[in-house]
């Protein structure tokens, strides 16, 4: 600190000698705020305040604290407002670590208070009390970190069990899907795309894993649609289309009456993946957020995947054309927010496509 910040008070108001010794023993300094925003040091400072007080070694000196410490500058702004309001009580700065020339930073805390219409600033070196606070907090956080690590390990093991279940489910679903010319890769991709959207939405890990398995079950109800309709090469008649629509209800029935969260989710998806955002879908003509979010997600990824890949009845469509066509459907067929999320994660969607190319299509 420069000598420009200090000056001997005209009428020193230092604390009485006994009180001064007590305060010094507590490793704190007391300052009285003067009208010109300077401070009068009322107690003899200890070495803990050398960085803040500079060359000041004894009580009775008037000084400016501006620029003495970045943190104290910040607190003095709050303190000035507090003193101005004239409220009783005190405000605390919270602890801060002040760098010292001797290397080790010191933990300090300031308090602003009013007494007899005068404003005072107390700065305390927290010393051992701070160290004790750090130890308690460190121990609590170390404990939390250990708990987190254990939870991660449980999750890792659960996921490894789940992967085996997923593999069985995928193989069965892929076998069922071949009936209408779909591939096993399509089934897998639908789950992975849907899970990627759920990740982008910040879903909880277990729910994402459920969606990854449940989404591929969206068309499981096609098992109940006659071959003559399911595998008809041309356009469906009105009656045939009505029968085809039943696959949503059949799927929901197959997956219903279960308390297993994954199957409940799969039922929602099977029933709702042909609903449209504008309420013109089927089977229930639900609109907007009445349609379960998982179903809304699958609607988007199912359309995308069907369009960009070859089917027995059509060649693959270039992705830019697909996205342009789908953009027309945002807010009409699709949830516009989820479609935006889908667009936001296109690099991941493309990576899933590249990693899970179609095998030969079984007709």
């Amino acid at each position: 600190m420069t000598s420009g910040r200090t000056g001997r008070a005209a009428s020193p108001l230092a604390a009485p000698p006994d009180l001064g010794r007590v305060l010094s023993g507590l490793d704190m300094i007391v300052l009285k705020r003067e009208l010109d925003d300077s401070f009068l040091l009322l107690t003899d400072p200890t070495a803990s305040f050398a960085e803040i007080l500079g060359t000041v070694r004894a009580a009775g000196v008037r000084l400016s604290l501006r620029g003495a410490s970045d943190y104290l500058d910040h607190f003095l702004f709050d303190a000035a407002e507090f003193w101005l309001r004239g409220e009783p009580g005190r405000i605390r700065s919270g602890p801060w670590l002040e760098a010292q020339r001797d290397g080790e930073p010191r933990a300090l805390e300031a308090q602003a208070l009013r007494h007899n219409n005068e404003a005072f600033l107390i700065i305390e070196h927290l010393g051992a009390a701070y160290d004790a606070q750090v130890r308690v907090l460190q121990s609590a956080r170390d404990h939390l970190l250990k708990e987190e690590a254990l939870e991660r390990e449980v999750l890792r093991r659960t996921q490894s069990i789940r992967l085996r279940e997923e593999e069985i489910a995928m193989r069965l679903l892929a076998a069922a899907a071949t009936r209408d010319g779909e591939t096993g890769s399509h089934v897998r991709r639908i789950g992975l795309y849907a899970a990627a959207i759920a990740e982008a939405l910040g879903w909880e890990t277990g729910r994402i894993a459920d969606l990854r398995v449940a989404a591929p079950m969206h068309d499981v109800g096609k098992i109940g649609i006659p071959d003559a309709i399911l595998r008809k090469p041309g356009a469906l008649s009105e009656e045939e289309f009505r029968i085809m629509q039943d696959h949503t209800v059949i799927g929901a029935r197959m997956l219903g009456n279960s308390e297993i969260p994954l199957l409940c989710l799969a039922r929602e998806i099977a029933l709702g993946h042909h609903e449209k955002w504008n309420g013109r879908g089927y089977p229930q003509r639900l609109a907007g957020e009445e349609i379960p979010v998982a179903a809304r997600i699958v609607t988007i990824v199912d359309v995308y995947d069907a369009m960009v890949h070859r089917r027995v009845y059509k060649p693959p469509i270039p992705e830019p054309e697909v996205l342009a066509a789908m953009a027309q459907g945002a807010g009409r067929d699709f949830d516009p927010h989820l479609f935006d999320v889908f667009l936001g994660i296109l690099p991941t969607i493309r990576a899933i496509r590249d990693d899970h190319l179609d095998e030969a299509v079984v007709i």
Partner: protein
Amino acid sequence: MIHLKLCMVGAFSVGKSSLVQRYVQSMFSEKYHTTVGVKIDKKDIALGATPVRLLIWDLAGEDHFSALRPTFMRGAAGYLLVADGTRAHTLDAALDLNRQIEASQGPLPFALVLNKEDLIDQWEITPPRIEMLERRGVKLLRGSAKSGAGVQAMFEHFASHSLKERAS
């Protein structure tokens, strides 16, 4: 010399202090040392021809035991929201802190730092979440306090960005 105040915020044990220590002192310690209160470090740098003193406010990690005081942001040129790539919930905590700061201080320049890139094979923060944040316009910086990768760029890119914001 221009003074730029930059705050480090985030959940506990995401590596805020380690990033500062790596940047200011080129050091790293494996052991987790919790921060209580605020520690201010300074570093003088040159951004082009402009000398800048960075005042880096390392704020205690947010959790049940310690809550962020949004007033700490007063006078800040911006803040780095730090998350640990290996702990997905620290990203949620960072985004929640961001909402708190914006609600109390209004919009301030910030960047989201994904730390612990040296452990990328253990990351829980997945590409879709990252892509989504980028789509929403969140400036994302990655690095590792342990290896030092990306750390200098993280601070100086952000300082440079803040300086431009201030000029405009």
